[in-house]
């Protein structure tokens, strides 16, 4: 088992590459979160091979928590997942466990199909709650990610955040011109378009859990001048998180 951490962590990152909401695995992190977890025995770790290649694995705790599992989608996922669940359920019963549970991405239909065949039912997970501490940095990183789309915008925005704790930036200035951008929190910056809203609502729009146009329409977010709503919508489309989030149980700690 020791020595497999690199391959297993790479498999995890590849299997969930289209998702966000978790810690990207490194061998050190995988070793801590799975291999050295107090309620995981070495015998509770299954590695599924196809020839010499690792195509799936599961880490099962002593009380039935399947802390982490994944399959390589380039192979027959149904066979891999069925193998993992059959083994896991047998293992849990052998060690006297009473319950089997694990986290999986909601959008993965294969998990739903195979779990249904195995008699699993679904329940909602604990929620993730989030707070942005550094707005300019957060927005800069997302704009960097979408730098190719900046050509379509030529504008200076000011995002005024209300209802935030004293140490928060109250004003975030975003300037986009000629395909480049700058973000700062200077109070003396003038901008052509201002957006103002409660901090929680602004964060929700950035996280994609609230629509910006809806928030503007219901006047929870104010835009000046109002006819610049479309520009605001374009800006938020660049700094909004779009990918589905998935939290594996092993990230809970």
């Amino acid at each position, binding site marked *: 088992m020791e020595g497999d951490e690199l391959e297993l962590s790479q498999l995890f990152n590849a299997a969930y590459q289209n998702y966000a909401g978790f810690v990207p695995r490194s061998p050190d992190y995988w070793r801590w979160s799975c291999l050295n977890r107090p309620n995981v025995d070495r015998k509770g770790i299954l590695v599924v091979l196809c020839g010499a290649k690792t195509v799936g694995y599961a880490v099962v705790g002593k009380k039935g928590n399947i802390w982490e599992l994944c399959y390589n989608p380039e192979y027959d996922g149904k066979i891999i997942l069925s193998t993992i669940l059959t083994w896991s*359920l047998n293992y849990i019963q052998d060690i006297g466990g*009473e319950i089997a549970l694990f986290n999986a991405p909601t959008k993965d239909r294969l998990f739903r199909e195979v779990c249904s065949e195995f008699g699993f039912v679904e329940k909602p*997970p604990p*929620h993730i709650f989030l707070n942005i501490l*550094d707005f300019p940095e957060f927005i800069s990183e997302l704009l960097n990610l979408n730098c190719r789309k900046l050509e379509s915008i030529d504008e200076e925005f000011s995002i005024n955040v209300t209802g935030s*704790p004293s140490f928060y930036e109250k004003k975030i200035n975003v300037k986009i011109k000629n395909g480049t951008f700058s973000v700062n929190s200077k109070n003396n910056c003038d901008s052509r378009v201002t957006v103002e809203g409660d901090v929680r609502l602004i964060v929700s729009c950035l996280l994609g859990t609230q629509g910006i146009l809806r928030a503007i329409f219901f006047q929870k977010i104010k835009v000046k001048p109002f006819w610049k709503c479309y520009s605001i919508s374009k800006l938020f489309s660049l700094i909004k998180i779009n990918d589905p989030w998935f939290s594996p149980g092993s990230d809970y700690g």
Partner: protein
Amino acid sequence: MNLVHKAFPGFMNGNFWTWKYLLNPNFDPSLVVVAEKDGKVVGCNHWLPRDFKISSNLHLNASLGGDIVVAPEHRGQGIGKGLLKFLRDSKAFEEKGVILTYMFAEPELSKRLYRSAVGYVSAPDSTTVYIKYLKPRLLKEKFISINAALQSRADLQEEIKNLTLRMMFRLRGAPTFSVVLSSNQVDFIEGNLENPDVIIEGNFTLFSSAVEGMLGFTSLVKALLTGKLSIKKGKLKIFKLVKVLKIFRKAVTEVTV
């Protein structure tokens, strides 16, 4: 650790805390906050620095909040909120380049503490928990609790007076079990039941939510009418069944409180 162990008995023993924090490759002792009163530790909060993926191809410097604890005798005094705010107010996160903080919590705790204290919002989460009960012991304990509540509460005794119903449950996600309500008490039986009055099939978590009060009464009736919970035998006893489940819900609420 004593404080944490008292707050999370059976879960946070020394071994687990040591693994979760001291052995964590990202552990930073300067991100553990302690509240003291008269020289005694009365609360603590732990933060773990993490590389966190916020998009499929972007990860940021973040910090996970975990295991906030306040000694029971000191709760309701704002210590929890103070612990949550402390590191942010002190700029410790800013110095370490932390861009966002996050935590996992049940929605009720979030409403009471995190949102009101420091403005946390729900993150977009597309995670499902898949669960399957392999043995009925946990179910049995639940019904033992319900029975105890029925015996001790006069209002529930009045409601179940002369009420009898033999129910068998074949639910996905749990082994078959039966519940018999008779002589003003509830008995749990593992497996099948001879001559049940009703046989209920469907989704275990939906049934569990109905009993534990997380699913409203109207939603329960809707689930029965739309087939998400279906009555395979004894359809005419549906009203009696709903009444019994309502009583169980009241008993569970009492147990929970």
